[in-house]
């Protein structure tokens, strides 16, 4: 096992950058936090000062009431950054959700990159992942087992549209997490030529508006609460996963329930959740993306966190790469199926 670098300390509740006295994605309130992206298991409320991309800051303002305009908080577009305590910080696209960033840090000639969550496939709602060469690469491992190979997104969207066509009297209720997945599914639908209104659960409304403000056109969106039951037959409805089989869904005409998540690759998982149509659409890198990324970045050392660390560690061992697992707490992979706010 490699030793932790003296200037970057992994703690159960986050990574602490000692010379800068700053935390990355801390799971409890701190004085200074650099945040990779807006999901609740990375972005928490209550920090005194937040450093993030403008989009992430806007998302945190929406979700946690962070005052994005306050001078103690600072927004950095991709490629940009700041220096503190001799550490040079910069933000680079991670391809996960709108505003998601890898955070690169350089200190005394050594560079460490924290990926946050990331993926490598195209996503119409965010900037593509950028490879940043570094000495230490701290990667996520949500899908760090070789059973996870996400099929091409177009095929999954085609499945969804085929279901809509096959059930003209039912609405197709897609379970998708409120930040990122929902907007991506809508954008992919638009790219596939679906121009009809998309009906959304109230919990998705504000985030969709935020995406639109940041230039991601999601087309005609309507609230389920303000729409007729009959009007939603043969149409696509999006809701957070927790609403799929809940009382809320009774207001829809006999809904078919696809669920969009990387976990859907495993039948047993999908069945447990009573999903009728599993769509393997993920905002996390699959096994091939994870291993290819480590190979491409080719760091001296990889630190692996939240997910199936063991699988990716084993791969590093097999390919003679130096690696260790970081055990951070509070990483419940919010956007891939954890229960969340309605």
């Amino acid at each position, binding site marked *: 096992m490699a030793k932790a670098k003296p200037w970057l300390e992994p703690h159960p509740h986050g990574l602490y950058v000692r010379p800068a006295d700053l935390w990355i994605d801390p799971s409890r309130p701190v004085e200074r936090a650099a945040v990779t992206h807006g999901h609740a298991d990375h972005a928490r409320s209550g920090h005194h000062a937040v450093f993030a991309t403008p989009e992430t800051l806007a998302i945190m303002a929406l979700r946690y009431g962070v005052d994005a305009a306050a001078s103690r908080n600072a927004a950095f577009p991709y*490629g940009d950054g700041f220096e503190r305590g001799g550490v040079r910080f910069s933000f680079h696209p991670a391809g996960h959700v709108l505003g998601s960033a890898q955070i690169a840090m350089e200190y005394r000639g050594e560079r460490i990159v924290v990926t946050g969550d990331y993926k490598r496939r*195209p996503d119409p709602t965010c900037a593509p992942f950028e490879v940043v060469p570094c000495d230490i690469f701290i990667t996520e491992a949500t899908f760090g087992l*070789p059973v996870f190979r996400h099929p091409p997104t177009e095929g999954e969207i085609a499945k969804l549209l085929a279901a809509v066509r096959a059930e003209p009297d039912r609405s197709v209720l897609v379970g998708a997490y409120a930040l990122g997945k929902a907007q991506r599914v809508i954008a992919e639908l638009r790219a596939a030529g679906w121009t009809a209104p998309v009906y959304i659960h109230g919990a998705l409304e504000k985030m969709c508006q935020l995406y639109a403000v940041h230039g991601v056109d999601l087309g005609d969106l309507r609230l389920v609460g303000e729409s007729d039951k009959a009007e939603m037959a043969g149409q696509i409805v999006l809701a957070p996963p927790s609403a799929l089989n809940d009382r809320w869904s009774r207001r829809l005409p006999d809904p078919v329930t696809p669920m969009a998540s990387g976990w859907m690759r495993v039948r047993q998982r999908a069945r447990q959740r*009573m999903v009728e149509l*599993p769509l393997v659409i993920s905002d996390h890198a699959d096994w091939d993306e994870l291993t290819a990324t480590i190979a491409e970045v080719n760091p001296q050392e990889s630190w692996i966190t939240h997910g199936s660390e063991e699988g990716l560690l084993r*791969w590093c061992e097999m390919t003679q790469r130096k690696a260790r697992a970081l055990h951070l707490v509070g990483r419940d992979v919010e956007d891939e199926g954890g229960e969340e706010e309605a």
Partner: protein
Amino acid sequence: MKRFAALIDRLVYTRSRNSKLALIVDYLKHTPDPDRGWALAALTGALDFPAVKAGTVRALLASRVDEELFRLSRHFVGDTAETAALLWPEKPLHFRGGVGVGSIGLAQGRWTPPAATKPASWQVSLPSPEGEGGLSVTQVVDALSAATRSDAPAILASLLDRLDADGRYALLKLALGGMRVGVSARLAKQAFAQAFAVAIDDVEELWHAIPPPYAQLFAWGEGRAARPDLADVAFFRPFMLAHPLEGESLDLSDYVAEWKWDGIRVQIVRGGGETRLYSRGGEEIGAAFPELLAAFDQDAVIDGELLVRGEAQGGAEGGAASFNALQQRLGRKTVTKKMLADYPAFVRVYDLLAVDGNDLRGLPWTERRRQLEAFVPRLADSHFDLSPVIEATHFGELAELRAGARDAAIEGVMLKRRDAPYVAGRRAGLWYKWKRDPLVADCVMMYAQRGNGRRASFYSDYTFGCWTDAGELLPVGKAYSGFTDAELKWLDKFVRDHTIDRFGPVREVEKTLVLEVAFDSIHASKRHKSGLAMRFPRIARIRRDKPAEEADRIATLRAMVT
């Protein structure tokens, strides 16, 4: 395999029976022979490839994939076939990402979304019928049938190489058996009948007479050939079934009464030198009861109750053990000598459908009974006896006898019209089952789970318990029926308002609601902590008036055990 894999995939996620039916109907109508026949055989568990076992798959995977990664994956997925299907190495998908960047800071400034692209057509077609280059079900079946223990791994590997993940899953499930897609033989036959607009009774009869891939069956279904001739074949005759008797009384000069024994309904058929044992759904269960197959040496078809020797039902005279004893023998592929000795099975015969080449089904019950009484002595009395007719002169007397059946642990009484022929299915006015009144117990709701399909948004499956002497609540059963729609709504709300913990899909509730549970019988069971298992439990009433402390004790239930 594409169509078959898509069918399996859809069936896995389809919960409603009618939707499953529609999927199979569509597949059968639009898939060529012999693929559809093999697929049907795979769905109903009629295929067996002795050279291919789970161990073959594990060994094969070990040669292709790192053992540790396989172990971690298997642990996560929980099923060998699915793990293998997902893990099988294939070329990684190409993804478009940031290409190797030499220095930091290439992407500067704020990201702008790409301009809207021209809408592509989203029309996609379902997989087309196989045969144009892809691997067909038939090719797979042929290859697996020809495999020997030594070349099975290589054959399996070459098949896996030619399929995608869904195809590999379908292949491994087909090869290893145990599809687990919720399709019974009955459902498959129904799909066939519906697909080709033929009578289900005909399908039932022909099904077991024709081996996979059922070419003659499809030819007949599509009107291309006459109904296959079944002389000299041990085929299954669809059962005659009974309606429940609800309140009405019957004239015993028109109806005859027999005890309703608590076993399973079976049919034994001997024809063309072969003997087969069928369960009610028309599934062959002979492998679990080799002694019955060996003992049935007459060219005939009988209908009866499969039981185990004992004294729980009707005492020494009744001669049958409880259903629980029979359960030890059910669902086995092979039986040990010890099982045969500890749970000796026999059939209590109540009808004769054919004998010495004559079909008796068109004759009235009285005539069949006369022939049955003459026939049974031709069978070994160690394994076959005659179901006696209950002597009662009028309906009131029968009602009294039925009430006494509680102690005898018999399920109730059957009433059969004396002049009725033996007809398939449930026909009004011919046969009635008059079950004894159910047992009831007051239990406390402990856990709840959501239902399926139409009930997916309702907590409709309830686990309930009774009190130990130490004042602890132990689960005694689970029920998901017996209530009205209005009661379901109320129960759903109760669960939501009184949840104290969640375990995945299961909610634990406050132990305050008493449910009156009705059940047919209760047995000792090692599977449950309470040591009890109920048969056919259902919610009889919601006892909002009753405090939970006053619900029944485990000891009370134990006293009802048969």
